C-alpha cells in the first residue's frame, strides 16, 4: 500500500525511564515522497529528533516503539534485526547530526571515516574508496581534498566538519538524507553555505531530505512541506505556504508571531507564547498546548482534538477548527 518513501503510521514511542514512561512520540503519522524536502519544526523535547531516530532504527536504549509502524522504502523498520538495519543505514538512509564536533571520531582521519561507509556498502576496494572519498570532499566544496583526507577532525573548522559529515552521509548516494539541526552549532554565514550545499546536492542527486530544525526561517526557504511538532505530536502539517499563510493551529501561529522581524521600521512588542514547555513526564490530559494556548476552551483540557483536514496534505489538531466547523454546519441547517 505504501508508495511513499517514508511512511510513519500512528507511531507511539516511549522512553521507559526510572521516573516513569515518557511518551516521546504520541500517535505520529507522517509521510515523505522521493525527492521531497520535509521540514520538521518544534522545540526541544517535541520529539523531532526521536522521529528521525525511529526512521533510522537507532532509538536509544530505554526507548521502545510501543505501537505503530515505520516503513522506509518498503522495509518495515520495526521488524528488521540489527544486521538488516545496518545494510540500510548509510546506504539508503543517512543522517547528519547537529554537532559536527562530537559526531566525528577524533582518532580517525577524515578520509578513513568516509571510506568506512564506502567499504561497508559497496564492492569497491581500498584504492577506489579513497578516490571516491576525494571526489565526495570535492563535491561538498572542500578545497585540496587530497590533503584533507589525511587530516583529523580537530584540524578542521566547524563548517568544514559539517561538510565532512555531509560527505559521509552522501557516500553511498542514499535515497533519504535526514539533517538533524545541521546548522545549529554554526555561524550564520557558515549556516548559509551549508544550507545552500544541502539544497544543491539534493537537486543533483535527487534524494529526499528531512530537515529538522527549530528555526522557522530555515524551513521557509528550503522545504516543500512542514510538520510542526509539539509534545510528541504533529499538531499541524501542510505545504510551506499552508503553514506560513494559512496557519491553523494556535501554537504555529504563536511561533510565527514570536519571531522578531528584521525589516520592520518600528520595533513593536513581541507576542510571546506564555508559560513553559510541557513536562513530558506528566503531560496534560487534553491538548498538550492547551495550558499555554490563549484561546483555550474547556474541552481542550479534557480531550485531545482529532485531526481536521483542510486539504489533502494540510491538517491540524485543534478544537477551535472543530468548533468553527460545527458552527458553520449549524448555520447551514438554519
Amino acid at each position: 500500500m505504501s508508495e511513499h518513501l517514508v511512511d510513519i503510521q500512528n507511531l507511539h514511542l516511549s522512553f521507559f525511564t526510572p521516573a516513569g514512561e515518557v511518551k516521546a512520540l504520541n500517535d505520529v503519522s507522517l509521510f515523505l515522497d522521493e525527492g521531497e524536502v520535509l521540514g520538521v519544526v518544534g522545540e526541544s523535547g517535541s520529539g523531532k529528533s526521536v522521529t528521525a531516530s525511529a526512521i533510522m532504527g537507532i532509538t536509544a536504549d530505554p526507548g521502545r516503539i510501543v505501537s505503530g509502524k515505520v516503513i522506509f522504502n518498503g522495509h518495515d523498520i520495526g521488524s528488521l534485526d540489527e544486521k538488516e538495519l545496518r545494510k540500510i543505514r548509510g546506504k539508503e538512509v543517512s543522517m547528519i547530526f547537529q554537532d559536527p564536533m562530537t559526531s566525528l571520531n577524533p582518532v580517525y582521519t577524515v578520509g578513513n571515516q568516509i571510506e568506512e561507509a564506502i567499504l561497508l556498502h559497496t564492492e569497491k576496494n581500498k584504492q577506489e574508496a579513497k578516490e571516491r572519498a576525494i571526489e565526495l570532499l570535492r563535491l561538498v566544496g572542500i578545497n585540496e581534498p587530497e590533503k584533507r583526507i589525511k587530516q583529523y577532525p580537530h584540524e578542521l573548522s566547524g563548517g568544514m566538519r559539517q561538510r565532512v559529515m555531509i560527505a559521509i552521509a552522501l557516500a553511498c548516494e542514499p535515497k533519504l538524507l535526514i539533517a538533524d539541526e545541521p546548522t545549529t552549532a554554526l555561524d550564520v554565514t557558515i549556516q548559509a553555505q551549508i544550507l545552500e550545499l544541502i539544497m544543491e546536492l539534493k537537486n543533483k542527486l535527487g534524494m529526499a531530505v528531512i530537515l529538522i530544525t527549530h528555526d522557522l526561517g530555515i524551513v521557509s526557504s528550503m522545504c516543500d512541506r512542514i510538520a510542526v511538532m509539539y509534545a510528541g505530536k504533529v499538531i499541524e502539517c501542510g505545504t510551506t505556504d499552508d503553514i506560513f499563510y494559512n496557519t491553523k493551529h494556535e501554537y504555529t501561529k504563536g511561533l510565527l508571531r514570536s519571531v522578531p522581524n528584521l525589516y520592520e521600521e518600528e520595533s513593536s512588542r513581541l507576542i510571546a507564547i506564555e508559560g513553559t514547555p510541557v513536562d513530558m513526564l506528566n503531560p496534560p490530559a487534553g491538548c498538550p498546548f492547551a495550558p499555554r494556548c490563549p484561546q483555550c476552551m474547556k474541552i481542550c483540557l479534557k480531550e485531545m482534538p482529532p485531526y481536521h483536514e483542510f486539504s489533502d496534505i494540510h491538517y491540524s489538531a485543534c478544537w477551535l477548527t472543530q468548533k468553527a466547523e460545527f458552527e458553520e454546519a449549524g448555520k447551514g441547517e438554519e
Partner: protein
Amino acid sequence: MMANQDILVEVQHLKQYFPVAGSSIFKKAYVKAVDDVSFAIPRGTTLGLVGESGCGKTTTGRTLLQLYEPTAGRIIYDGETIFDSGLDGKKVKANMLPYRRKMQIVFQDPYASLNPRMTVGDIVGEAIDIHHLAASREDRRDKIIKMLERVGLNSEHANRYPHEFSGGQRQRVGIARALAVDPEFIVCDEPISALDVSIQAQVINMLEDLQHEFGLTYLFIAHDLSVVKHISSRIGVMYLGKMVEMADSNEITFHCCHPYTKSLISAIPIADPKISRASKRIVLEGDIPSPVNPPSGCHFRTRCPYATPLCAEKEPEWKEVSPGHFCACHHLDQVK
C-alpha cells in the same frame, strides 16, 4: 561623537590580547580578541553587538566589566574613568567593588552560570549580602522575593535549586540576580541563545519591560541580528576583533555599507517563504580566519567579494559615512 547626550558607558580604543600558550618566548603570539574598539552608550538605551563566534563580542562585554583586565584602552563609566592604560604605561584602575553594584551581567548559558549547590534565593541574595543592601534578614528575604516576582517567578521558588528549573526559568533567575543590586547598566551576553524559540520572546519582552521600569542601559550581545535589531537602538557589527560598522539599528538594516554586514543580513533566514524565495543570498566563501594570525590590512578581505590589493596593504579607516553611521572599508562607493 554624541557630546550632547548623557553618556553612561564609554569605551575608547579598547584592546584585549590573550597570549597564546606554547608560542615562542622570543616572539610571543597573541590572540587579538578585541582590537581597538570604541563606542559610547547613552543612558537608558541599548547598544547591540553582533558578530560570529570568535569575533570578540563576548570578550568586549567582559573586558568592559573588567572581568578581564584590558590590555589597553580607556573605560569611562558615568563620567569617571575606571580604567586607563595611559600613554606612559601607567595603568589607572578604579576599585571595582562600588561599580560592580552598578554594572551587572547576564550570562549566555543559564545551565552553567548558576551554582548548582546554592538555592535560587541564595543566588539572588549573594549580591545583596556583598553590597550590604539589606538591613535585616526579613528585608533580605523581601528583596529576594520582590526580585523573583518581578521576573515572573514566585516566592516558593526561592528555596529550590537550579536543576529544578527549565532553561527559561533559569535565565529569569540569572536576570533576577543581576537586578538584585539595583544596577544601572547590564551586559546581556547572548541571554536568549540557549532558550527555546517560544521562550525567547518572553525573555526579550521582560528585558524590555525592565529597561523601561528601571531606566536600565544595556549592552546586548548576540549573534542573531534580527533579535539585536529588535531590542537595540544602535548596533555595532564586529569581525575578528574589530568593529567594522556601527549605526542606528534601522540604518544598519536598511542602509548598511560594509560588505560583511551586507552578507550577514542576507544570510539571516527569513520566516516568510515569499520573501525568502525571492531574495538572493550572498553566500560568503570560506571560513573565518584564525584570530591568532588574522589577515593583514582589512581582516575581512579573505572572504570579501570586493577585495583588492589595497585591502591587503592598508587597514581601512573608521570613517563617518553619514551622521552617526560609521564604517571601516576601502571600497564603500563600490559596495553601494
